[in-house]
């Protein structure tokens, strides 16, 4: 059977070889030493579309899909409602089969929607400028830390102990890579003056809302930048980073219209103050005009970027998560100001309903008394792993076991996706421990 992905016919191939002036395709590989060009590959036999669909359906069915289970798991990846508009727009192949818009004249779709994305992110975060998106929240935070070192000409990065531990690890990897230093600091303690930045998370990893204005003041008093890691959905209801003095705001944009997909692709949201735009990593799209004076969009401030500046670039990032940024733009536009506020309020009230129910159970208590948004930590009377096993049997994915940080503690997440019935069932099962 000929391959559907190889449109040349054998007649085409013969004609082409004649034009090239060689007798066989083999001759075209002659620069490769003879002993190296006939490697053997042990790979499964090819399958037809029909056969492979069956095989992949089988693999997919081995996973517990959260379309079928109730889910109270967060910790960095979130189940939120995705309006149909998102899939339909990003499913248009004019968008998804294009590449980086190097040829602006035939890439206005990508460029203008990126300009929309940047604008929507600025509106959401109340920051002045946004780039076109990065890989994920953790790498955006790490790049922000490095940018702060460049801006302040200092070599130490301070990260609050309440920041998501994976983010801390990624920041540490990136910072060490550059031969810089990372220090974890207690949110209540002061900041040494040799720090380039303070990184704090809102709400923090444990779900609590922190006093971000105080963090910002502390950072600025030490001559450091303040970097806020935020939950973008929370900004439908809570104070945005631009208002509490953040110099750089980063987030994982998965929650904005992207499926969880086992953790990727995500989206690194990255926004900052105007004055730092030329130190910002990543692509940036700007508005301009064409030779006829017609409005159009281009990639701009490209002298920050690797393909122009090579070793003097602000980052090595090239291919990023453009399609996920498009999804985020469509998501934010679909929801609009009332919709996003509504989603945030649903999360808030439903999470509090669940927390109230659990806190009343014998042996359970909320680990913190601070205000929270959609995640909260609960001290349990049994090992969270044991509780989660029981929940799974009843069709519920329980919370994140954070017993390594606090004894018998579980981090639960409730979103607009969780019905009251699901939550009541969760509380009921927890009550059996």
């Amino acid at each position, binding site marked *: 059977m000929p391959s559907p992905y190889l449109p040349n016919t054998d007649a085409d191939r013969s004609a082409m070889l004649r034009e090239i002036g060689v007798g066989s395709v083999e001759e075209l590989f002659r620069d490769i030493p003879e002993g190296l060009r006939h490697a053997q590959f042990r790979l499964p036999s090819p399958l037809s579309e029909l056969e492979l669909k069956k095989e992949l359906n089988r693999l997919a069915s081995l996973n517990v899909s959260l379309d079928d289970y109730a889910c109270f798991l967060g910790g960095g990846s979130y189940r939120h409602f995705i309006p149909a508009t998102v899939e339909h727009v990003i499913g248009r192949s004019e968008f998804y089969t294009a590449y980086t818009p190097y*040829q602006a004249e035939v890439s206005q779709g990508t460029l203008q929607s990126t300009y929309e994305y940047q604008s929507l992110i600025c509106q*959401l975060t109340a920051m002045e400028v946004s780039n076109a998106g990065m890989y994920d929240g953790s790498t955006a935070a790490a790049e922000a830390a490095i940018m702060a070192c460049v801006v302040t000409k200092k070599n130490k990065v301070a990260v609050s102990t309440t920041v998501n531990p994976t983010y801390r690890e990624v920041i540490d990897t990136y910072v060490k890579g550059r031969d810089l230093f990372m220090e974890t600091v207690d949110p209540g303690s002061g900041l040494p003056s040799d720090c380039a930045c303070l990184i704090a998370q809102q709400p923090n990893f444990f779900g609590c809302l922190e006093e971000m204005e105080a963090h910002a003041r502390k950072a600025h008093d030490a001559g450091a930048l303040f970097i806020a890691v935020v939950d973008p959905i929370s900004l439908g209801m809570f104070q945005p980073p631009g208002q509490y003095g953040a110099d750089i705001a980063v987030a994982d944009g998965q929650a904005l219209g992207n499926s969880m997909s086992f953790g990727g692709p995500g989206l690194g949201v990255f926004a900052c103050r105007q004055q730092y735009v030329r130190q910002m990593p990543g692509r940036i799209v700007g508005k301009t005009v064409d030779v006829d004076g017609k409005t159009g969009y281009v990639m701009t401030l490209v002298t920050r970027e690797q393909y122009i500046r090579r070793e003097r670039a602000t980052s090595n990032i090239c291919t990023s998560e453009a399609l996920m940024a498009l999804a985020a733009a469509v998501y934010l536009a679909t929801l609009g100001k009332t919709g996003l506020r509504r989603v945030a309020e649903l999360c808030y009230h439903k999470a509090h309903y669940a927390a109230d129910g659990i806190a009343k159970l014998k042996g359970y208590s909320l680990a913190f008394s601070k205000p929270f948004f959609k995640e909260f930590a609960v001290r349990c009377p049994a090992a969270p792993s044991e509780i989660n096993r029981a929940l799974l049997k009843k069709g519920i994915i329980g919370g994140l076991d954070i017993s390594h940080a606090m004894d018998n503690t579980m981090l639960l997440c409730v979103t607009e996706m969780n019905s009251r019935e699901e939550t009541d069932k969760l509380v009921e099962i927890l009550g059996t421990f």
Partner: protein
Amino acid sequence: MSHHYLLPDISQPGKTGCSLPALDVPAAALPPKELLRQELELPEVSEVGLIRYFTALSKLNYGVDTGFYPLGSCTMKYNPKWHEDIARLPGFASIHPLQPEGSVQGALQLMFELQEYLTEITGMNAASLVPLAGAHGEYAGLLLVKAYHQDRGDKARKKILLTDSSHGTNPASAVMCGFEVGVVASDSDGNVDMRSLESAMNEEVAALTLTMPSTLGLFDPRILEISRLVHERGGLLGADGANLNAFLGRVKFGELGYDYVQLNLHKTFSTPHGGGGPGSGPVCVKQNLADFLPSPVVARNKGKYKFVSPAKSVGSIANFYGNFGVMCKAYAYIRSLGAQGMKEVSEDAVLNANYLRAKLKPYYYLPYDRVCMHEVVFSGKRQKAKGVHTLDIAKRLLDYGLHPPTVYFPLIVEEALMTEPTETESKQTLDAYIEAMKEIARDAEENPEILHTAPHNTPVRRLDDVRAARNPDLRWQMKDQGHG
């Protein structure tokens, strides 16, 4: 309405694009007011308004599904439609990365097998799927290099060597890993200049990063000699694997002497480029680097799959485990091709590139006049003598409904036109491109003005980059915030 409107222009109070459920639990007390947001100025648009807006934008875009996209080094091959569906299966799309491992065995098996396939395809011993794009994979590779030398107590190796034809991400990634960058020259045949390598390769060099085939589309016949020299002097050899499509199913990086290679699943393994991502940049390594791989990797034990952290891992480099959605598509691609199918891919990729080379050589200067691999680099030098630049040629191609090649790269070729047809294009398509390029060459002689003013038929014409950079306009604001 032209497409020049933006979301705020169609925003009206009271419109919305979606319906949301009512609150089904009692409302809780709100937190202190200072934590709450007062203003949230997002556009308010109807669903139909939104769909028409983005549909209109999509029509301004050119993708692989629109037509020929010979962007060199980007491997813009066709993306099989049903692979898109696979990543959207609820069992793959609707799974949380922190679910109990027992509830995601299908996903872990897919990742484990993909690690195995990529390891086999590259002739390596281990792989990490975590890197999120090509440059992220390069970065991971260089972190391994750094950790490897530190582990051996060799602190003097502060430099990464690259060739003068390397991608811009290569030096940028090296700097992100704290390395200095040294450049090795290419010789007049487009191969590594051995004398240049000989003098640069000293005890300060941690690794040579060598794209194979090079960005000139050429395979360096002295690869084993290069590998020997680098290793004899204590360095490692790393590959930017962006150009694997040239010898997929035929050559193994491991057998060429490489210690690691970073792949681009969104190039060689046919996953769509998404307008600039998502990508996926797995890094495959020999045994000497396996213990340093980014965390986590998937292991199999008694039929169960689980995440493990390599013994001396360089640590975490991403939120989770990599771009799983992209991995699903690449996995499907490998399983549908098999070993023989892959060999056929590289055969047609190389055949197509050489066909373009042979047919266009009479019209465009060919700086390296030899058999090429998956891409051919022409120079617009001849046309430049007539006052026509490569940029003009590229823009004129747009008028023919064709996407231009990569231009002005590699940097060592004057007025470069780096052309990668890929195997998913037919002779018919290539012939149409050849005809367009011939007409453009003729116009460069006879009617250069039409090139200088190109493109003429595109949604917008040449855009003012200087203005965009001088007075950056990077966002709109809602009307009541100031300007529209």
